[in-house]
């Protein structure tokens, strides 16, 4: 799991049976005490759980999560992308710019221009057991050995890496660079429920090469890609290219794809499975 904090942005990404929504009230109070009393944008997202019944409240279902978020953000919106009875990805968004449409709620306030922002997430399952064997404590004494052996250090070489290998297995890393960009990778290597997530906000005009490198590093049987980009982002105009091109001439079969246009962001969701697996 990881947390990233910058001047006015906070990111929390947690796995297992953690309860991130339960800290929301406390987080908002802390932010207010530090000068930030207005939420501009909120995004809550996750893939469908493998075992939703093991989760704790308020994470036992997306409806429960939405109810919880709605109690704090009454104008939020919820979405489900992908196939609801197979693999899907849930998203809840709140944007203050949506509220600004209503003169009853907010009036006479200056609309602040956004900074460029983009996030790509690659969520992988059914990973190659040999590749995953690197992320066991009995293979390496320290996480850096696993980082180098797997090739994680070459995915975005400008990143300064902080990595951790769990006992007996599992791996987390955060990477940050001088531009304030981040990457994060979390690995559950056990063969019966293997899972790897990759996420970064690096600004690229085309994510195809990056996706290829991540996929070649971890060798999943199937994966989901989501790309979020706001209207100031380099990625915004080029998401279409990925939409058309990525699965061409490769052994990846695109099993699902959806595009959403939000007021200030575009979202591309695509799901791929290995044609031969």
């Amino acid at each position, binding site marked *: *799991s*990881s*947390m990233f*904090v*910058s*001047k*006015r*942005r*906070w*990111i*929390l*990404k*947690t*796995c*297992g049976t*953690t*309860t991130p929504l339960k*800290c*929301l009230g*406390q*987080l908002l109070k802390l*932010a207010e005490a*530090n*000068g*930030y009393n*207005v*939420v*501009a*944008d*909120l*995004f*809550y997202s*996750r893939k469908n*759980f*493998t*075992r939703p019944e*093991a989760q*704790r409240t308020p994470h036992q279902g997306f409806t429960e999560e939405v109810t919880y978020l709605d109690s704090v953000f009454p104008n939020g919106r919820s979405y489900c992308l992908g196939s609801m009875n197979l693999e899907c990805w849930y998203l809840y968004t709140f944007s*203050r710019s949506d509220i600004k449409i209503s003169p009853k709620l907010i009036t006479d306030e200056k609309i602040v221009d956004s900074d460029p*922002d983009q*996030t790509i997430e690659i*969520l992988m399952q059914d990973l190659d057991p040999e590749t995953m064997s690197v992320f066991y404590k009995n293979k390496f004494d320290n996480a850096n050995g696993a980082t180098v052996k797997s090739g994680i250090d070459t995915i975005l070489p400008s990143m*300064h890496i*902080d990595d*951790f290998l769990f006992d007996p297995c599992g791996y*987390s*890393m*955060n*990477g*940050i660079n*001088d531009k*304030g960009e*981040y990457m994060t990778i979390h*690995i*559950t290597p*056990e063969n*019966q*429920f293997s*899972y790897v*997530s990759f996420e970064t906000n690096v600004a690229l005009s085309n994510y195809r090469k990056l996706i290829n490198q991540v996929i070649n590093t971890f060798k999943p049987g199937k994966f989901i890609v989501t790309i979020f980009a706001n209207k100031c982002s380099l990625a915004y105009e080029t998401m279409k290219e990925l939409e058309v091109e990525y699965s061409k001439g490769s052994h990846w079969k695109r099993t699902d794809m959806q595009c959403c246009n939000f007021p200030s962001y575009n979202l591309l969701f695509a799901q791929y499975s290995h044609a031969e697996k």
Partner: protein
Amino acid sequence: SEHFFEGVEKLLEIWFEESSNSDDDLRNISRADWENVLSNVNCEIISTSKNDIIDAFVLSE
């Protein structure tokens, strides 16, 4: 019972409106306050790294 771990993450991202005071910064929040916040999530800070723009925390779980 059969061993299982849910690798699928929950991802929460919040952007706050620009503050009129340039000294305001979420990175001014102390580690103790973050530990307190994260206790509600059921995870702990394992490791930290930072530069001039961003603080990063590796967490348990």
